[in-house]
């Protein structure tokens, strides 16, 4: 018996459940959101078609400028801190005795959810909180922009370094030994060995880590929502927070959907451009 006749005419049947689920749970809501972005809708009455007016308003909205700036800080900060430090910890701990134990403390915070993380850090960053007492300063870390975004970025780093370290360690373990040893024999070591041999060999994995971090940072929401709700006065809002606030707090479902569509396009485009460059 061969495989082909078994698949036969019903071969599409095998993928149909997955296709149906994806269509119903992912594509349909996206199409619906895209439609809502072209309407005025309060979540109750029927959506009223207004064409691209929401997008026109969005582009002239000063709050969008702030959330775009904050989102960019999140993206850049994520690349430097959680990803950069993750790489550093991985490289420093990879080849030493007991390195795995060294990495354990970095992994522990990853067990927290984003909302839980924010709740844990709220009394630390609060004015008159633990950080003020420890540092002997009188700063409200979550008040002024962009300091509040940077403070939240440090919290995010505390949680994310571990998982990035883990991924980079996997990358380091998958590197073939031969080219590394050959380079060592040729006298390369330290920074030169890393820069010219190890780093290029790790490139496929780096692409994945950076790609994941890029998408995660573009949609930063829970930590900001719980710690500052995007405030005070919208100064720590990210695009995802703007989307949530416009939709569910202000009941401007159409406008919120326009932010969602824009965020999707930006995330999709950034991922595409980045991955195309990396996976060539």
């Amino acid at each position, binding site marked *: 018996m061969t495989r082909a006749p*078994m*698949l*036969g*005419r*019903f071969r599409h*049947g*095998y993928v*149909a*459940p997955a296709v*149906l*689920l994806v269509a*119903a749970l992912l594509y349909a809501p996206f199409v619906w959101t895209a439609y809502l972005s072209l309407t*005025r809708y*309060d*979540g*109750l*009455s029927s959506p009223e078609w207004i064409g691209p007016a929401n997008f026109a308003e969005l582009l002239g909205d000063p709050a969008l400028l702030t959330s775009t700036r904050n989102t960019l800080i999140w993206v850049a900060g994520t690349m430097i801190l959680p990803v950069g430090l993750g790489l550093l910890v991985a490289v420093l701990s990879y080849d030493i005795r007991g390195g795995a134990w060294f990495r354990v403390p970095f992994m522990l915070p990853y067990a927290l959810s984003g909302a839980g993380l924010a709740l844990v850090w*709220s*009394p630390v*960053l*609060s*004015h*008159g*909180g633990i950080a003020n007492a420890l540092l002997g300063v009188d700063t*409200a*870390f*979550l*008040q*002024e922009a962009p300091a509040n975004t940077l403070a939240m970025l440090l919290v995010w780093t505390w949680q994310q370094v571990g998982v990035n370290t883990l991924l980079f360690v996997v990358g380091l373990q998958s590197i073939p030994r031969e080219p590394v040893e050959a380079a060592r024999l040729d006298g390369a070591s330290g920074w030169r060995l890393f820069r010219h041999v190890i780093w290029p060999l790790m490139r496929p994995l780096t692409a994945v880590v950076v790609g994941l971090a890029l998408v995660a940072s573009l949609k930063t929401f829970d930590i900001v929502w719980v710690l*500052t*709700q*995007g*405030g*005070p*006065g*919208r*100064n720590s809002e990210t695009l995802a927070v703007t989307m*949530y*606030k416009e*939709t*569910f*707090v*202000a*009941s*401007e479902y159409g406008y919120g959907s326009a932010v969602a569509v824009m965020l999707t396009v930006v995330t999709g485009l950034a991922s595409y451009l980045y991955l195309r460059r990396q996976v060539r």
Partner: protein
Amino acid sequence: MIRSRMAALGVAALLLAACGGNGAGTQPRKKSELTLYNDKGAWTRFFDEMGALSKQRIGLGMKPTGYTDSAQYQAFIKASFRTDVKPDLFTWQTGGMLAEIVKQRQVADTTDIWQEAIKAGDLSQDLAPYYTIGGRQYCVPMNVAYWGMFYNKKIFDRHGLRPPATWDDLVRAAATLKNAGVTPFYHTSVLFSFVWFEQLMAGTDPDLYDRLSTGKAKYTDPGVVQVMEKWKELIDAGYFMNPGDKTDPGDVMKNGKAAMVSFGTWFNTSMTQRDLRAGADYGFFVIPNVNPALPKTSVIFESGPLCSLAKAPDPAASAKYLKWWTTAEAQEKWATTRGDVSANPKVTIEDEALGRITKEAGSGKYRLVNRYFEATPPPVLTAALDGFGKFVTEPGAYREVLETIQKEADEYWSTHQ
């Protein structure tokens, strides 16, 4: 062959599951226990006690499902209008939010319940306007609250202070405390950032406050600008704690981080939960008007509704529950367990200060002003809460803040007059 048939069968089953309704929504079924959805997650214990009592008295149990994020809660309730998953009972907000869902014909009419309750003396006629839309009543009062100032009595005693009779007294008390190294007032940049705005507006020009909430006045009008300048003066004088302090206001009172916290009478629940004793550890006073020439002292008032849907799973059971909720027996329990005031005038309020304000408000001594949260349409409210949040951290930006709120108000009222 068998495998391909199995696959086809699997697809068919999934399709059926995806497309089929449960068919239960068409025929109301008798319920013996109702689910009460609410955005007051912290009150679950009190709702549970009410459920136990109602089961005993009217044979209808009640289980609460409490949310803590009100935006998430509202989105859930709105979504339930279009699905078969409908709450038996749910809490909501009066004002524009109630009008919005009544307009969609989603809310059960409670005119009969109101008429009977007013006749029996269980509800006051004065409360009816908050629940009346197009001449009919919807929902019943879940709670009522009067706003005033909670103060740390020990701190007041230590500095020889008494509850102020005039606005100047209040400012003098703040100055005394500040000089003694005590922070006089609590305020915050998140959610309740509107509290001092509404209080100063209502105590300065309550008519302007009312016009503002109906789009007949502008946030950039001189009267509103003056109120912001007054507020800024108080902040600049150092009378407020840092809005970046995330300490729970209940703990602020308990620890004396600030001597005074302005909230609705429901804040008394936070006091009793912390084992603080009224009259010994803390007290409550009505905030005097900023403008002494006003004929009556303005008191911020709020009432949160308990509603049921026109298409509730068992409309008769939901209506029976709402009717029971308004009775003195139910309200006595509801008010006592939380240490709060009640919408039912027959209920004796244990707390002396709260009992007094309820009685005086009922006698017409105050001008009751609808709380900003209910009085303001959601999009304008969102912009205002953000704006006041910005203002308390950056008081110099008050003009810019007012302009931003007015921009949102212009947009809203251009389509909603």
